[in-house]
């Protein structure tokens, strides 16, 4: 939309107004864990300092035979 009309109506609307926002955010890990009958590793991570620990835990879970879902809050554009 913005590529064709960079200054158009779409550029002035919020994501909520055009119904493309995922706010409130669903709990993606919980969706997956429920489907696996509770047998799934899940975690949320927002800070860089927490990344290594959480990723390592998830890797161990998967190597041990259990799927893992990491919900990572990421900035846009980088």
């Amino acid at each position: 939309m913005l590529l064709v009309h960079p200054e158009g109506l779409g550029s002035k609307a919020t994501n909520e107004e055009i119904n493309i926002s995922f706010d409130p955010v669903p709990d993606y890990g919980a969706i997956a864990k429920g489907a696996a009958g509770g047998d799934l590793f899940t975690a949320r991570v927002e800070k860089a300092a927490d990344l290594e620990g959480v990723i390592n835990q998830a890797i161990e879970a998967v190597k041990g035979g259990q799927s893992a879902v990491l919900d990572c809050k990421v900035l846009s554009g980088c």
Partner: protein
Amino acid sequence: MVAMSMADGFARLTGKPQVVIVHVDVGTQGLGAAVHNASTGRAPVMVFAGLSPFTLEGEMRGSRTEYIHWIQDVPDQKLILGQYCRYSAEIKTGKNIKQMVNRALQFATSDPQGPVYLVGAREVMEEDIEPYHLAQDVWDRVELGGLPQKAVRQIAEALVGAKKPLLITGYAGRNHQTPAALVELANAVKGLRVLDTGGSDMCFPASHPAWLGLRFGIETEIKEADVIVIVDCDVPWIPTLCKPAADARVFHIDVDPLKQMMPLFYVPAQHRYRADALTSVEQVTAHIKTALGDKLDAAAASQAWDALTASHQKRLDDIAAKAQPAPDGTFGTGHLCRQLRKLCPPDTIWAVEAVTNTGFVHDNLLPELPGSWLNCGGGGLGWSGGGALGIKLASDAAHGGPGKGKFVVQVVGDGTFLFSVPGSVYWISKRYNIPVLTIVLNNKGKPGLFLSGTFEIILSLTN
């Protein structure tokens, strides 16, 4: 969607056709965008579905016995998938069913590969037949050849004589031997750069000085190149945003150079060939080494190589600088992927469906090994849930059984995660012991949906 995405992922990694069995018209419709993906991204998948029984008074075994047989009777069920399939047909008797299946598989596995659809009514499936045997060695796929000799000379000479040669590919890495052949070519033509504009396969190692990474149709090198060789690629550039110089020489080598599935496609190539990428690249490299050895200016080549190495290092440094966390400790996809690369096994297979974040993923995972990066090559978001499972199943099978294959990680956007039908994906994962790591890029859905909802908008990352 999930079953066909699994079949797609398995087939995509192994090259071996896979089969999905679904229930009449409604099950076929449940395949969803996975059909688009298998067609657009060239995966050999056979879909089989039954048809409602065609008798209703018990005339034959299999005649209608349920309410739903009336409701699921449709005029031409093949039409649901028809335009996406390389072949679709109805099995009308059990007596030549093996030949029908073989024919369908030949279409699925012959370039350009893709989905095929077979249907059969219940009475046909219930038919008694005499067991029979086919010699399977006469049913192989069509083999694609290389370049005509004239083309080998023209392309080799053009590359060697170019000031800024560029090779653009999308899916050459589907054949895991091709990246090494591209490296050989880049070593023979010092100064050649390689750009991936597909994002569906690992095509060229990030550590090589010729690597330009993955960009969806916008890159300075395209505008500056005087010779461009396009190899197995659907969208080499987006003309409204970026195009080659008017006097650039363009060669196009592809399993499908006219893009038989796209009503609109054209590329201003002076020469185009339907040919196997690996064979063609090897032919050109061999010709350069044997016939053009004395045309290669060693001093110029050395200079070009030094310039290439310097700009490659700068590219890597710029990527690293952009992937730093923010001062408040928050981070972007780039930093996240850098950490994943560091911590996951080096031979991890990445199933990536990151939409607008794909460039950041590719820049920081820096794929190095053939077969280590997969995407469906199509626009049907949701592939990567089933796709990752199929890839893990395939890797385990290839290495001796459950748990013995490579580590598989799915990197997926938040909206796309929902499209993958996680309710099915993670039940299947648990039920069939297919453990994968899923990384959800949670940015509340923006900016992917905002700009255009398809992954062409990754242009925002390239500048």
